[in-house]
């Protein structure tokens, strides 16, 4: 039973927050009343990061659909795990939603010695957000036009070849590519993808495994060229770009996907409601255009399929981390 007066709930700002707090203390809101208070979207990266831009966009678009205030809260640290733990321990009522790369949370299960949560058990996927590939890139002036040409040339070059990466996914993709093809290129690590641009241009690195935002902007500017995407299927945003398997390197598969995650044990009707909201936003042209501009496709899925993919990624990353020789922290 909701005993807070209706007018209190409609007040904006602190009054609503207070009312919400009163509700939470006095009685559990029933699932069909959801949402009964402001909704919090947790963001695992600082304000202003790429992830933050995405979370704030979704918050902006879900707000009118949910007809509720949606607040973005940045809980930064430990590669997204602090926000993941915060969400997992939150009340399972759908008012705390972690909008983050589910693939990264899955990866963290093996990148950390003591992961604070059991990702696929403690978190429930409510909805998908996007799917993003990683790209195999070469400089625009590079002689290699296809992945097969690059692979053949790198086999020739042996350990004189170098490649760029700027994060864990790029590192894993680089290692998997080397293992599948047997090439011996040396990894050059960069703090951000942008730091690598001068080294691409001057030929210091022969190729790189880069994120789609970086890849797209510099391909359009005519400085770099994309050879293949790391996903199992081609991207709608880039239909002309082959997958690595199509380009002759099977067995390298890496997908980044953002999702809306809620604590396990959140009532099914609440999860369904969230799913409906997100899918409604993702179906708009505006959302498609927004996600495409960052090199991704909208990811419309059910909570069940999302959870299955989540479990698969937790399993896959165990192999990825071992393959890349990353020592858990």
């Amino acid at each position, binding site marked *: 039973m909701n005993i807070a007066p209706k007018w209190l709930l409609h007040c904006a700002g602190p009054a609503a927050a207070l009312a919400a707090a009163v509700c939470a203390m006095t009685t559990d809101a029933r699932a069909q009343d959801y949402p009964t208070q402001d909704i919090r979207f947790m963001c695992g990266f*600082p*304000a*202003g990061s*790429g992830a*933050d*831009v995405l979370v*704030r*966009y979704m*918050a*902006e678009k879900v707000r009118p659909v949910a007809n509720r205030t949606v607040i973005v*809260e*940045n*809980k*930064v*640290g*430990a*590669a997204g*795990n*602090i926000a993941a733990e915060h969400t997992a321990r939150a009340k399972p009522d759908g008012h705390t939603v972690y909008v983050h790369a589910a693939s990264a949370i899955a990866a963290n299960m093996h990148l950390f010695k003591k992961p604070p949560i059991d990702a696929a058990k403690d978190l429930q996927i409510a909805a998908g957000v996007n799917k993003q590939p990683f790209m195999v890139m070469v400089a625009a002036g590079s002689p290699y036009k296809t992945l097969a040409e690059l692979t053949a040339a790198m086999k020739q070059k042996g350990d004189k070849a*170098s490649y760029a990466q700027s994060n*864990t996914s790029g*590192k894993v993709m680089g290692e998997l590519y080397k293992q599948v093809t047997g090439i011996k290129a*040396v*990894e*050059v*690590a*960069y*703090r951000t993808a*942008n*730091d690598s*641009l*001068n*080294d691409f*241009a*001057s030929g*210091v*690195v022969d190729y790189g495994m880069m994120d789609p*935002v970086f890849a797209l*902007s*510099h391909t*359009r*500017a005519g400085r770099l060229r994309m050879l293949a995407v790391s996903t199992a299927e081609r991207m709608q945003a880039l239909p002309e770009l082959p997958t690595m398997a199509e380009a002759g390197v099977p067995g390298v598969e890496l997908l980044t996907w953002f999702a809306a995650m809620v604590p396990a044990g959140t009532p099914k009707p609440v999860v369904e409601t969230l799913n409906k909201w997100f899918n409604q936003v993702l179906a708009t042209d505006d959302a498609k*255009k*927004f996600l495409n*501009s*960052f090199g991704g496709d909208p990811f419309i899925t059910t909570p069940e399929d999302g959870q299955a993919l989540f479990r698969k990624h937790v399993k896959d990353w165990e192999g990825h981390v071992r393959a890349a020789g*990353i*020592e858990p*922290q």
Partner: protein
Amino acid sequence: MGFDLFQNLATGFGAAVSLKNLGFALIGCLLGTLIGVLPGIGPIPTIAMLLPITFGLDPLSSLIMLAGIYYGAQYGGSTTSILVNIPGEAASIVTCIDGHQMAKQGRAGAALAVAALGSFFAGCVGTVFIAAFGPPLAAIAQEFNSPDYFSLMVLGLVTAVILAHGSVIKAIGMVLVGLLLGLVGTDVNSGLTRYTFGISELWDGIDFVPLVIGMFGIVEIIRNLERSTLPRAQFSARLKDLWPSRKDFDASWRAVLRGTALGSLLGILPGGGAVLAAFASYTLEKKVAKDPSRFGNGAIEGVAGPESANNAASQTSFIPLLTLGLPSNAIMALMMGAMIIQGIQPGSAVMTKRPDLFWGMVASMWIGNLMLLVINLPLIGIWVRLLSVPYRLLYPAILLFCVIGIYSTNTNIAQLVLCAAFAVFGYVLLRFGCEPAPLVLGFILGPLMEENLRRSLVISRGDPMVFIERPISAILLAATVAVIALIVLPQFRKTREEAFQ
């Protein structure tokens, strides 16, 4: 070329000078000044939170507003540096050194006015600089590879030693402590965490905001409170004292020119251009001054030079973004995000495909600088009056804003604990006569230096000759050797010691 320049600027002013765009420039500048004045609340979270609002605006208006926040914060940051010794952001740390001394001597008005005028002048030059030399300069920045960055950082760190006005040994010690603090967190090359003691809050490294607020702001408060009589800042509302004297102008105009030149050049380089520029300008002013002993005791050149330098650099740091699509710092990365959302791919194509947008933004930079001057000059009287508030009322307010600022960066209590630890550490350093400025420079440049050193050696497969073979790197290292020679030459040492005893 000359004709093109004027035609381009005309296009820009045509696009930027609409009532709507002027309005957005004003909103941006006001917001920026406000967040710049509040310690710890930086432009990055502000721009991030305003980003969704700009989705609905047209691209030029939204970029003008975001850019206004950026310059506004630069201006506002120097205000707190001068008044209460709390740098609003990294580039205004140097302003604290002499600016706050001036405020203590009752010359806060002069310091604020010189900072505002110097910044305005530098902003104007920076704008013309972008319009005239943007593309060719961007091409030079593109020539910088890892070894060159390493050598640049080495030069920056060595010059940091000159910054201090105590013993050279202590200054070197401080730079090294800064380097060590900078290494905390995840190592880029191996992906392993270092010096984190299993505390997950330290995995991403020590945040800049708690460090600076602890070591500068809180230490300053402790220092003021430990006096038996609380300081009453000399305060004079006479207009004469709010405005720089003839002598002040004479002393500072050359510093403004030199700072502007340095800042315009260093701003183009990605990664902390504005910070390096401010430090470099201070070093240069101290070197060329007839009487270097005045530095650290309220030398107006020590405010004029660095303030001009950091503002010129914050202007020219748009060059890599606008011409290459390369963000040179976190704020530029945000601006890039804003452009992508608007369907604009940052880079040279913007100049040819959307000249109104490109030149409109360049023109709006100048307009923004003018607005800031108009906003800030009348405010000087109010800021200075703030100092007449009894310190027992002022300090809890400052402390409160510091705490809010730190907490708001990522809503993590651990940051406040860090800040408290740095305040204690900073106080101990103060008692030992060690200055925090070289430490902060080491903290900022150290990780960049290490990263580029190791990357250079990976690329050269372990051959250190790579630092001498590349001409840019070789020149920078030669300059470093020259600076070291200046420090160790006995004659220099003598004058140095004379100067500071």
